């Protein structure tokens, strides 16, 4: 590639001998991936034809690499890979060949060359408790993020850690982990939450940026509406069972075998916004609910601290029965005291009884 930055996606594909039919097919798949309706395909085609190649810098902080795994775990060439082929991934710890100073140099060069235009992808949360908890080349995550983001066009926070603090932030949050949005206030930040996020969703967001050059419409958590606009519950194929009141009570009962609703088994689908029900996992094979396990709510803030995974959403986080028994014990004690007060007050009133006779029924004036 002579000067990849000047080439549009259409040119790249044509150079690879892709026919217009093939391009249309690619656009159909891309629109589907971006969760856009088929009627948007011509617009996607027109935009993709002219899409230029953006520079992407991928920063990994307090994370488990699950997000990268999710993205790269495909066994066969995929649409995602095509999109990825088109972007210029100039820095990524795990994937890049360069290491050490060379790697950091690549990042700095990309930042310099594309100032104001590059995308920053972040996975992992940022520790504020002690900068030493997580560093790259001796530089704290906070510093790296601030530096890198300064010249970026936008930031994509991939995974629940980057988006909401994630598992590092779970109680009692020993590292003082925070999300990207807690630090970056002056740049658009798109949260692509999930633990890990659905690969198609990560790519879909990139594709959207690639296609339209803008950020998609976001929900109140900064997540793209077209993937996070509906809850798992609302798109769940088992929803009719919820409505009919048919639930699995254990993982091996009749209800479980018949594929009934997993609400009672702790499915957090009603409070979870993600595209699992339609995008599915493992190349469209299945997704948690289809495999018989409730949704953990991994794309939601604080999902780790939201009570037991196997407790229904309606069950409070704490141990209610314990609270009730303690309160009952306290109530008995205080109640006995209140009862004592009342008995005493009434006994006193009886003692103070002034006998009424017919001669003192009239008020003395």
């Amino acid at each position, binding site marked *: 590639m002579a000067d990849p930055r000047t080439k549009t996606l259409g040119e790249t594909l044509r150079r690879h001998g892709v026919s217009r039919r093939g391009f249309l097919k690619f656009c159909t798949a891309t629109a589907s991936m971006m969760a856009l309706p088929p009627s948007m395909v011509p617009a996607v085609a027109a935009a993709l034809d002219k899409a230029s190649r953006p520079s992407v810098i991928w920063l990994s902080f307090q994370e488990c690499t699950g997000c990268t795994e999710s993205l790269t775990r495909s066994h066969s060439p995929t649409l995602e890979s095509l999109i990825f082929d088109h972007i210029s991934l100039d820095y990524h710890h795990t994937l890049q060949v360069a290491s050490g100073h060379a790697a950091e140099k690549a990042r700095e060069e990309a930042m310099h060359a594309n100032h104001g235009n590059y995308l920053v992808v972040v996975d992992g949360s940022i520790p504020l408790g002690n900068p030493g908890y997580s560093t790259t080349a001796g530089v704290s995550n906070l510093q790296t993020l601030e530096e890198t983001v300064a010249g970026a066009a936008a930031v994509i926070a991939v995974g629940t850690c980057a988006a909401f603090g994630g598992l590092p932030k779970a109680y009692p949050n020993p590292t003082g982990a925070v999300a990207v949005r807690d630090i970056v206030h002056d740049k658009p930040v798109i949260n692509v939450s999930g633990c890990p996020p659905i690969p198609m969703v990560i790519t879909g967001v990139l594709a959207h940026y690639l296609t339209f050059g803008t950020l998609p419409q976001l929900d109140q958590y900064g997540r793209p509406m077209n993937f996070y606009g509906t809850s798992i519950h609302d798109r769940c194929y088992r929803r009719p069972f919820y409505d009919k009141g048919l*639930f699995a009570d254990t993982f091996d009962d009749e209800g479980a075998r018949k594929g009934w609703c997993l609400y009672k088994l702790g499915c957090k689908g*009603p409070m979870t*916004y993600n595209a699992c029900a339609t995008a599915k996992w493992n190349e469209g094979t299945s997704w948690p609910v289809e495999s018989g396990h409730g949704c953990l709510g991994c794309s939601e803030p604080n999902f780790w601290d939201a009570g037991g995974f196997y*407790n229904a959403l309606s069950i409070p986080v704490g141990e*209610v029965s314990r609270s009730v028994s303690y309160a009952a014990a*306290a*109530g008995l004690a205080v109640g006995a005291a209140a009862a004592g007060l009342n008995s005493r007050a009434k006994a006193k009133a009886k003692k103070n009884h002034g006998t009424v006779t017919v001669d003192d029924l009239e008020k003395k004036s």
Partner: protein
Amino acid sequence: MNESMDFLLWARGTAFDVAVAIFVIGVIIRLFEIVSLGRANNLAEPKGSEFGPGMKTIVTRTLPEAGVFKRQPLTVIGGYVFHFGLLISLFLFIPHIELFAATFGFSWPGLPNPIVDAAAVLGIVGLLAVLWHRLTNPVMKILTEKEDYLVWLLTFLPLLTGYLAYHRLVNPYPFILGLHILSVELLLVLFPFTKLMHTFTLFLARWYNGAMNGRRGVES
């Protein structure tokens, strides 16, 4: 930045524990306060027993006398509709049953959601009807105090927020679910110190009425 989820977690966590504790302690105090006032031993020769008629009145007072029903059908029908709507929504909605099961260790079968949904709508309509009645009926107007409106609101909010949450009419869901739980917590906290106590004390009241009349040989 995670306001609604933090709010939901708080409502499902600390706030719920505090509300339940106040509720349980408060209800026990109130019941103790009542019973501790005692009832004088009745020395008059009885014509009938106390216990049976008392229990019977607990049941029979659920139905209105025909004459007063004809005079104030809205009080009775509105009362039935909202109580049944409320009780069905509270006790027969499966997510609620899960909560009771987690609290008390036993559960019971629920109803399909569309039925509970219809009951909740009836409950809301019934509550609006009784509110309207309270605002227009001269007897209720003279009896009504601020507390009556407070109690109405405390009852109405859980139904309303529950309906909104179930139909996902407010986004995001964690926010409205949190509001729903918070409205219930508000209800729990104020329950022991308001007329909501009638939920428990009406059994005492009806029993006393039935027993005192039963002793005189009158079915009340």
